[in-house]
């Protein structure tokens, strides 16, 4: 190990490497590489934590794992493999979520520094807050394909992870998904929602049937459509898609006919929608076209079934087959626990087949190009491509910056970016020229931070305030909230204490426009004043929003800095801020684990979910 050989490092660095305890959060692509570098450099006291298990698709880059390790804990196997490089290191492996309260501020304080190698924003936000609270240097890193970045986060010295608002996830208006899709992604989102309507966790926001409240369809046409529906069904009361499917015994033909014929006919009756659009074509299951129309892929992949375009007839067959398999699995689960349900997982063959088939059938109906299962998997699973080389480069830079920290040269820990192509100066691995100072208006790292949130105080419940605003949007773990003016407790992290009031609206609790809540998260040692702005809920608009987010969180000086900064394209750098190492929406079991931990990013859909805006 480098530190154990005289003459490799300076004495200062040698001693610091051999005596410093470091925490690595994440044992994925970057985490494996960091662990190797630490062990080879001669670190002797390392802790590594990851809640994930090993998947075959990790093996092209997470080189501490092999085929026989699939399904095992990443942290545990990474430890074993790294110990084979140097058996004299003490490595503690935790197969666990870092967001658990067990990993307290005091836990973080035992480390000389923390090295993040994470794949999701929720965990990054959390570790950011823990390191700020413990006043421990944090090295943040991420890659996506050929691009990657490394940055130091140190309280009071640099920007924190949350100083810059991150781009919100791509969302689509509900009526685009339900009524007027125009791109493949709209059909894929619809397919995923259909899966959840039939087999997943019930979510009224992710309906798949025609949206009669579409403002565009308003007027006589919409009314006549409603009448038609009333006549056909005998009553106007809506039945949920799942109830309908259950009543029909998940019959493939009946479901197909409802989804791809009757619902489409119903949409056609909303004439306003089709004045300037191509009309959709209702389909009958026994009259499906054999052609592969408007396919998006060429012929380069004949052999790989994932990359071969499917004809619509084939989509129909795959729809039936996957529907029946999913039905069996679902009924199996429900026979054991009637509240249990399936969780969509891109790596589950039937779940993926179902979404791919539904998306392509719907695309055909609306004259949208179809996609291969391979492409649909990328989009539906939010898969970020990942390669060994970029991870190796980034992890190398992480540990070089760790050396800087150990030598008390924090001012030298400039952010570094890595790209596919050199910039105009020929730079491929590009360090910034200095540290980025904290954003003085950041709602996380400045003193006495504040944030304004707009909600409908008559509709939003206390429970939703806790779950959707404080936990989901503002990334807290165990928040307590009191009214600033009166000191009345609104939300308590003590279990059961406030149960009686959880379903009251904010207005009923006396929380109105302008009310200030003092929110405190014990786990993160984080206090925040939340100013409530009342705004009436509107169709197709998010019902929860951070007010003046951009302007408040990003003073003008910062913008100039990031544009001028390293002489590089600031836009690209901002994009990079969002990069995650691995993956994708976590797999179903990972998601379950995450739910149990009330931790990690429950993928995509839980973030920033709003009633009428659909999140992929």
């Amino acid at each position, binding site marked *: 190990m*480098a530190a154990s050989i005289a*003459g490799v490092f300076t004495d200062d660095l040698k001693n610091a490497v051999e005596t410093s305890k470091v925490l690595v959060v994440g044992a994925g692509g970057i985490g494996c590489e960091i662990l190797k570098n630490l062990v080879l450099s001669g670190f002797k006291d390392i802790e590594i934590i990851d809640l994930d298990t090993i998947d075959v*698709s990790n093996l*092209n880059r997470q080189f501490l794992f092999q085929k026989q390790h699939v399904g095992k804990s990443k942290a545990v196997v990474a430890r074993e493999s790294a110990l084979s490089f140097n058996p004299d290191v003490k490595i503690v492996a935790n197969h666990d979520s870092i967001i658990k309260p067990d990993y307290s501020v005091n836990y973080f304080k035992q480390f000389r520094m923390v090295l993040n190698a994470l794949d999701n924003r929720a965990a990054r936000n959390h570790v950011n807050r823990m390191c700020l609270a413990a006043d421990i240097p944090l090295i943040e890193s991420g890659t996506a394909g050929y691009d990657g970045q490394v940055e130091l986060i140190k309280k009071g010295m640099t920007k924190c992870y949350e100083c810059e608002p991150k781009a919100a996830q791509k969302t689509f208006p509900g009526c685009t998904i339900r009524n007027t899709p125009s791109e493949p992604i709209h059909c894929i989102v619809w397919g995923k929602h259909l899966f959840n309507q039939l087999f997943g966790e019930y979510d009224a926001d992710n309906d798949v049937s025609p949206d009669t409240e579409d403002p565009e369809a308003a007027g006589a046409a919409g009314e006549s459509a409603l009448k038609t529906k009333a006549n056909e069904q005998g009553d106007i009361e809506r039945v949920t898609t799942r109830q309908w499917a259950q009543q029909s015994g998940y019959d493939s033909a009946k479901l197909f006919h409802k989804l791809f014929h009757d619902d489409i006919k119903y949409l056609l009756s909303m004439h306003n929608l089709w004045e300037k659009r191509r009309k959709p074509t209702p389909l009958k299951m026994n009259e499906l076209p054999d052609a592969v129309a408007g396919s998006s892929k060429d012929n*380069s992949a004949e052999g790989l079934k994932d990359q071969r375009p499917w004809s619509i007839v084939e989509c129909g067959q795959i729809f039936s087959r996957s529907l029946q398999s999913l039905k069996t699995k679902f009924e199996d689960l429900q026979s054991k626990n009637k509240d249990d349900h399936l969780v969509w997982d891109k790596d589950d063959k039937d779940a993926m087949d179902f979404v791919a088939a539904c998306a392509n059938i719907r695309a055909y109906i609306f004259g949208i190009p179809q996609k291969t299962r391979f492409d649909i998997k990328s989009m539906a699973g939010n898969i970020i491509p990942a390669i060994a080389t970029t991870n190796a480069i980034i992890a190398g*830079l992480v540990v070089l910056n760790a050396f800087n920290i150990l030598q008390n040269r924090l001012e030298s820990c400039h952010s570094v970016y890595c790209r596919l*192509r050199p910039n105009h100066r*020929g730079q*491929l691995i590009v360090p910034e020229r200095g540290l980025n100072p904290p954003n003085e208006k950041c709602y996380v790292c400045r003193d006495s931070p504040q944030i304004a949130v707009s909600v409908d105080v008559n509709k939003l419940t206390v429970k939703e305030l806790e779950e959707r605003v404080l936990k989901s949007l503002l990334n807290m773990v165990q928040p307590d909230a009191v009214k600033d003016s009166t000191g009345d407790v609104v939300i308590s992290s003590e279990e059961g204490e406030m149960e009686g009031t959880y379903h009251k609206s904010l207005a009923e609790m006396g929380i109105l426009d302008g009310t200030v809540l003092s929110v405190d998260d014990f786990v993160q040692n984080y206090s925040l004043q939340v100013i409530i702005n009342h705004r009436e809920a509107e169709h197709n608009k998010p019902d929860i929003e951070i007010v003046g987010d951009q302007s408040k969180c990003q003073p003008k000086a910062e913008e100039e800095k990031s544009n001028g900064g390293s002489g590089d394209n600031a836009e690209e750098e901002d994009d990079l801020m969002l990069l995650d190492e691995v993956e994708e929406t976590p797999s179903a079991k990972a998601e379950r684990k995450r739910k149990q931990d009330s931790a990690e990013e429950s993928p995509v859909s839980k973030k920033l979910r709003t009633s009428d805006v659909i999140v992929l």
Partner: protein
Amino acid sequence: MVELNSNELTDAEAEQYDRQIRLWGLDSQKRLRSSRVLIIGLKGLGAEVAKNITLAGVKSVTLLDDGAASQDDICSQFLVPRDQIGKNRAEASLARTQNLNPMVNVTAETCAVADHPDEYFHAFEAICATKCPTDQLLRLDKICREKSIKFFCGDVFGFFGFMFADLQTHEFAEEITEFKPTATEEPAAKRLKAEPVKTTVKRSSTFVPLQNALDVDWTAEPYSKKLKKSESSYFLMKILLKFRSENMRDPSPGTRSADMEELNRLKNEVLTKMSIPLEKVPDNLLSMVFAEIGPVCAIVGGVLSQEIIKALSQHEAPHNNMFFFNPERNLGHVECLGA
């Protein structure tokens, strides 16, 4: 160059390589799987390249090294188990390299580069040489030029590292992003917004032999004009290659102070001969070149491996023709030298 193999990927390959196929495409993966790669020198940098290239899924990897694994290697050589120190590096690295990817055929070769006839090297699509004396590098590049084999070399000295590529005339597909106005049904105001459109174009790039890159005259144009702005890496490389040629080894932590003196002497000699001011290579840089630092092997090895992958898959523009990692600023830059 490899012809696109008509054989399809197996499901096992598609599954294991999924995340990279989503980046560089199926055709690239097929080209990789029919490529044979020779990796010369199995110290820290060689180990990183062996790891990355084996993970990527080429047809075969041959590890060539005639030296024995030493105590110093444990700074960065993670493919050699500790109980195999003293054994041949290539052989000692074989098992762990193979474990990285059972779908790649990995072999070890213990005979020195100089002892192999030219024909030996004809059996590869790419050759990557590390820890090689300059005369052998020049010989290998010449052999590669004659047989259109992609040639790479590189080294890590302490915190410093570099690589060179000679791909002769290289054809590749590059994905470029253009901004085009979109035609939508949206109102005119929205239509003005340009959307990025990705297209793939065929391009080619011409490389020069290693000799040209090593013989750059910085007193003549165009290099004399660049001298002021250019940083110390190229000159440091020249000093270190000279050290290797004259001492038949690299600067070693065990003989640090004697080697520092030798490096200073060579600095004077090399820079004076090139008519370069001595301050171009600061003394503190000379103190950073001992052993091979693991994280630096990872960085230079990552860049070098990606260049090999790009060349074999004919996907994306290669760096023409040198890359340097300067540890003073964590700066990695690409420079075209000798063209």
